[in-house]
């Protein structure tokens, strides 16, 4: 239990749009939550990247990071992650170099392989042939643009070069784990929605890690869903928003819905199993319950850091969940 308390806590935010709500509200709440998370003492606040999804407002990730960084003063702010096949590495380097120049020492660049968006969006993003297979090469390019310039270098990221913005590899498989290990980068496992390979990926990461300029020993960050409330019953009720999100995802169109009294009425046994499997790494309950769950998670994964997703319909209750979690960490 003592180890858990030393494990840094961070936040990952998808900027969820409520069903019937607006992207404007979602973005304002994203900035507001960041301000309050900084007050609660969280280590990082990361923004995800999704496109063409009515329920998610975090499409212009680097722009939203800039807004969050400008509204806060100490917390680290970054991407969780930039889906690199969607972007030119040079443009990513310029954007994050700009963010780092504006907010020195506070910016993280988490990188992921885009999980194949729909073909229309892929075309609109000009993805071309750049696919997941080119990911290691794209990571190397970004790293090159953010490193020190080399003699004769024809294209320089200004801002960007020499900033050494720290990179993080996001993944939900052993592929990302192996890449992070080989490059000597921190590894972030997306166990909050794809937990199947969590243990094996962490094993691959730690076994193969090679120290780099950025990092001398492995740093594994584990994603976890948390819903904390005053009682277990209240937390389970609030958790039905996230359960329905995955249920609607399974059914074809992801939605953020208000909590329901009886989730069993909403899904078939087969759907229930699918949702439960995706949300297996979740800590839901009173502070006491959540503490026990997270202690177990840290014990079983030896996570160096937890990155927490809390999706609750009501913004104040969502913020309160983060506050309760922070309180048990510092208690």
């Amino acid at each position, binding site marked *: 239990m003592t180890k858990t308390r030393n494990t840094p806590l961070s936040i990952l935010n998808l900027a969820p*749009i409520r069903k019937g709500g607006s*992207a*404007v509200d979602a*973005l*304002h709440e994203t*900035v507001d939550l960041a301000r309050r998370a900084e007050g609660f003492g969280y280590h990082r606040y990361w923004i995800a990247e999704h*496109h*063409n*999804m*009515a329920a*998610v*407002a975090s*499409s*212009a990730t*680097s*722009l*939203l990071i*800039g*807004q969050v960084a*400008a*509204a806060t003063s100490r917390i680290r702010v970054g991407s969780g992650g930039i889906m690199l096949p969607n972007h*030119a*590495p*040079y*443009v990513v380097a*310029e*954007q994050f*170099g*700009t*963010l*780092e*120049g*504006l907010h*020195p020492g506070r910016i993280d660049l988490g990188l992921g392989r885009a999980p194949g968006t*729909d073909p*229309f*969006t892929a075309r*609109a*993003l*000009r993805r*071309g042939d*750049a696919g997941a297979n080119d990911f290691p090469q794209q990571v190397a390019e970004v790293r090159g643009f953010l490193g020190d310039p080399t003699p004769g270098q*024809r*294209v*320089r*990221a*200004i*801002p*960007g070069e020499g*900033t050494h913005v720290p990179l993080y590899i996001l993944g939900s498989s052993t592929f990302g784990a192996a890449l992070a290990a080989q490059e000597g980068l921190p590894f972030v496992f997306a166990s909050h929605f794809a937990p199947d390979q969590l243990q094996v990926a962490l094993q691959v990461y730690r076994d193969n890690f090679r120290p780099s300029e950025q990092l001398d020993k492995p740093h594994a960050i584990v994603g976890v869903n948390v819903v904390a409330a005053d009682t277990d019953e209240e937390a389970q009720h609030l958790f039905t928003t996230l359960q329905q999100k995955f249920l609607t995802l399974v059914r074809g169109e992801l939605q953020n819905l208000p909590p329901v009294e009886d989730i069993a009425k909403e899904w078939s046994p087969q759907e229930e199993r699918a949702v439960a499997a995706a949300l297996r790494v979740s800590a839901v309950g009173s502070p006491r319950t959540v503490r026990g769950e997270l202690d177990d998670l840290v014990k079983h994964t030896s996570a160096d850091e937890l990155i927490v997703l809390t999706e609750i319909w009501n913004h104040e209750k969502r913020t309160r969940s983060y506050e309760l979690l922070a309180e048990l960490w510092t208690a």
Partner: protein
Amino acid sequence: MAFTCTSSPPPRLSLLDLAPVRQGHTVGDALRRTVALAAHAERLGFHRYWLAEHHNMAPMASSANTVLAGAVLAGTSTIRVGTGSLNLSNYAPLVVAEQIGTLDALHPGRMDLGLGRAPGGDPWATSAIRRRSDDRDFAAQLAELLSYRQGTDRQVRAIPGEGARVPIHLLGSGVHSAALAARLGLPFTFAAHFAPARLDEAMALYHSTFRPTKAMPEPYAMVSVNAVLADTDEEAARLFTSVQQRFLFTVRGRMRPLDPPVDDMGPLWTPSEGTAVQEQLAQSYVGAPSTVRPRLEALAVRTGARELILMSETYDQDARERSYELIAGLWPQQIPSTTTTSPARKGALR
């Protein structure tokens, strides 16, 4: 041909910032300086603050100008903020729509999207920016951008971005851009601060061929020029030598950050270099306010510009703030009329 009469209100005053990197200072310094200067400009009552886009150029820190515009928006509360320009062919229109949508959601009604057609960088940088070449013309790219804003693409949606009310401006330094802006019924800004040769021709063409739309019943022309003001003509001329040196090194093909001013440019350039630099900087308004005021008024009358967007770069930062102050004091700033390009605001203007 008279575009305005002497009884017209004086042109609005706005600022263009390339986030100049100074010799001996970091790129980060330049970025943070731009945010601080924009707040200063807001207090002085300027109408807009636009950020340029340049890539792979050591003297300019504004490559990711939507990110920088976001920082300026977050650091101000009333002034209009925009890109001047964003080079649309460098980016997927969906990405631009999402970016502008994000900023407009958090800072409603304050953002301008100034678009340009030039790449803003050398061929190597351009190929690093554009992973795939987009052979369509500007109008087709613009149409795609507008389809996301209007939500008319049924398969791909910009979220955020749909319904964002961000005025689009077209920037250019040639007659082709002027004609395109006129044909599309967009506001037009002529970039005379570095390529002034066709200024009068382009402005005349824009006004004479403008096609009114419901949103834009009348043309709206802006001119960007260099303006360095100081308390005396001599001091302003000295401050301006930093910009002259920057252009000199660019002419020589070795761009470098902004140098401190010198007493005399004569020893630094050959006669032909001096001529080349002075041609590029022909639209520069350097001096004490009493010297510059009549020249800028004449520029607005001659070109029909309703707004002047000024680039005021000096090496010394206090001098740059002072230059901004003196520009703001050239004439009283009008309360903006209610046009679609520039919605009326309260509190920003004196």
